């Protein structure tokens, strides 16, 4: 698989009355063609800002202060607005948590969908309408011939998210950025949408960057996971590695704090004590230090990323120590 998107040292800050809030503090990762990759994190971890920064879709008080985000070698962060607009929706599409705000309430669903199709594929009006109906059918909307002439408010939340997916994928993007696409939905609908999203993207070969706070969603949908905390990537690896052999104390804590049942035994939950750091004055060392049960004075300095095995890296002095031990053992 070739590399589709590579993000390098992305930094995004929000300038508020109280000062600079460093939401994303140097994030680097890459996405391969056809890959489903997830970013998990709690609120304030910077996961959503990272996703929005890729397309320069952050609100005016925010500013990308550094880094690169290269899509097939073209840096999206330095691209003129005019050219970036062509990238958005064409090569990179995005869906959000609340589909109601992304759909225009005064236009029919069909009008919005055909507009996208006509702009990107230069189809005739009749042809575009047929194509739109076909897309609605593909995303599982019953009787699309009738639904196409209805307005967004006549659709339920799940149905609107389906429409958004249809709009996003109809222009055959290389990358779909999905920012908490199922958070507002009920579990049974969430399961439907996730199944739809993964199936469609697998058949079209679209890469997906899925932003979520739900570890279950990531485990079910993605092949690779990025764990973010305090504006930094704490750990990155395949889902199998992250869920069965987590390296970072934060990831471990996160996994322990979700209830797991073994037959007949009620286990007490193990929460991570404390609350996330204030990014107005982020600690210069490890952002998780304050809440980490294994913190030491070493953590006042930010550790380097170390791979515990190829493709599985984490940002923790413990990983550094384990790695050097292993190397010594080899010698």
């Amino acid at each position: 698989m070739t590399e589709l998107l590579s993000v390098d040292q992305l930094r995004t800050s929000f300038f508020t009355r109280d000062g600079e809030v460093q939401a994303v503090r140097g994030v680097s990762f890459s996405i391969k063609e056809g890959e489903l990759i997830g970013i998990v994190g709690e609120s304030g971890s910077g996961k959503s800002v990272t996703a929005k920064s890729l397309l320069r879709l952050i609100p005016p008080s925010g500013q990308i202060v550094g880094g690169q985000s290269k899509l097939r070698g073209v840096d999206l962060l330095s691209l003129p607005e005019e050219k970036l607009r062509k990238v958005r929706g064409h090569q990179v599409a995005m869906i959000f948590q609340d589909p109601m705000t992304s759909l225009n309430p005064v236009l029919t669903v069909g009008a919005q969908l055909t507009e996208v199709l006509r702009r990107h594929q230069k189809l005739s009006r009749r042809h575009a309408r047929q194509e739109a109906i076909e897309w609605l059918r593909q995303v599982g909307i019953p009787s699309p011939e009738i639904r196409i002439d209805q307005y967004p408010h006549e659709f339920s939340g799940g149905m609107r998210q389906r429409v958004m997916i249809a709009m996003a994928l109809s222009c055959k993007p290389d990358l779909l950025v999905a920012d908490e696409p199922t958070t507002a939905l009920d579990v049974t609908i969430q399961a439907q949408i996730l199944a739809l999203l993964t199936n469609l993207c697998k058949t079209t070969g679209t890469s997906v960057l899925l932003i979520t706070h739900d570890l279950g969603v990531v485990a079910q949908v993605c092949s690779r996971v990025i764990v973010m905390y305090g504006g930094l990537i704490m750990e990155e690896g395949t889902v199998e590695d992250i869920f069965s052999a987590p390296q970072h104390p934060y990831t471990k804590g996160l996994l322990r704090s979700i209830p797991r049942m073994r037959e007949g035994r009620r286990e007490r939950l193990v929460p991570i004590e404390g609350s996330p750091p204030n990014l107005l004055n982020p600690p210069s060392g490890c952002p998780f230090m304050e809440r980490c049960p294994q913190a030491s004075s070493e953590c006042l300095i930010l550790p380097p990323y170390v791979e515990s095995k190829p493709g599985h890296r984490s940002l923790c002095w413990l990983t550094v120590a384990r790695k050097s031990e292993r190397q010594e053992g080899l010698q």
Partner: protein
Amino acid sequence: MSDNSLLEGRGQARTGKTPLLEVRRLAKHFTIEKSLFGRTTKVLKAVDDVSFHIHRGETFGLVGESGCGKSTTGRSVIRLFDITSGEICYEGIDLAGMNERQLKPYRQKMQAIFQDPYSSLNPGMNVMELISEPLEIYGGYSRSNRRDRVIELLERVGLKREHADRYPHEFSGGQRQRISIARSIASGPEFVLCDEPISALDVSVQAQVVNMLEDLQQELGLTYLFIAHDLSMVRHISNRIGVMYMGKLVEVSFSEELYTHPAHPYTEALLAAIPIPDPKVLMPTDRLLQGELPSPIDAAIGCKFRSRCPYASRRCGEEEPVLKRIAPGHYAACHLHE
């Protein structure tokens, strides 16, 4: 506190005889449309003929998707509004027809924690004022005693003495929920309605709050009605669980029994839809529920789940199933279990 003592406490709860709270045939209808002369023409049956009971010291979970009536049920139980019909018996006394004055002694015993940590605390009051409010109404504390009691409560929920003079916006979501908890136990209640208390919190903080609720239950002998849509958390905290669908209770059982042997097709689908945080256990995509909720306003005859049910038969369209006992302590409303 060890896991063992937790389990023992729960065991005792199950053997209790008369339930603390018994809800019989509860119904709450909302008027959607009125004719010109004030006659009700369209009705939303938010809760329709729901019965269950909660034992002293027990946690009863109520789950279901948004709009299923679980919150309305909870709010009816603590009489946040007048109910349409049915009985709500607290220690055998029916609260359903009481007015606010008659309810007052029960208000002290029945408390609530709500979902949104941002709107459940009055932004204009500091923590001291917030927590001492129920004390002013019931406690009979003097001013200085009240302050001591508030500080004691704050420390009990893991906050500090100096937090007493701060305002809600200075706290994180998890801390606010702790303040809500301190406030709800201030009057010394027996029963606490937990209306989605963790849904708005981050995963790592949810566990803190759930542990705290469990500890307080142990210590103070509290009884919970725990409402949530996060099924794995409900399973963790509840002794028994009720599943609601479109205003109806479709299944009630002990939590382990419910998760291992779901009897109602809706429960089965609901459980299948939980994304499991383990990449090795894949979701059973073949059991995913198709379709969406039908409109709750059009009253249809028969089983309300039949439009999405893989096992629906002709009978389901003609006759509405009622809750029937299918195993000890396990009830389901489905024609499959006849």
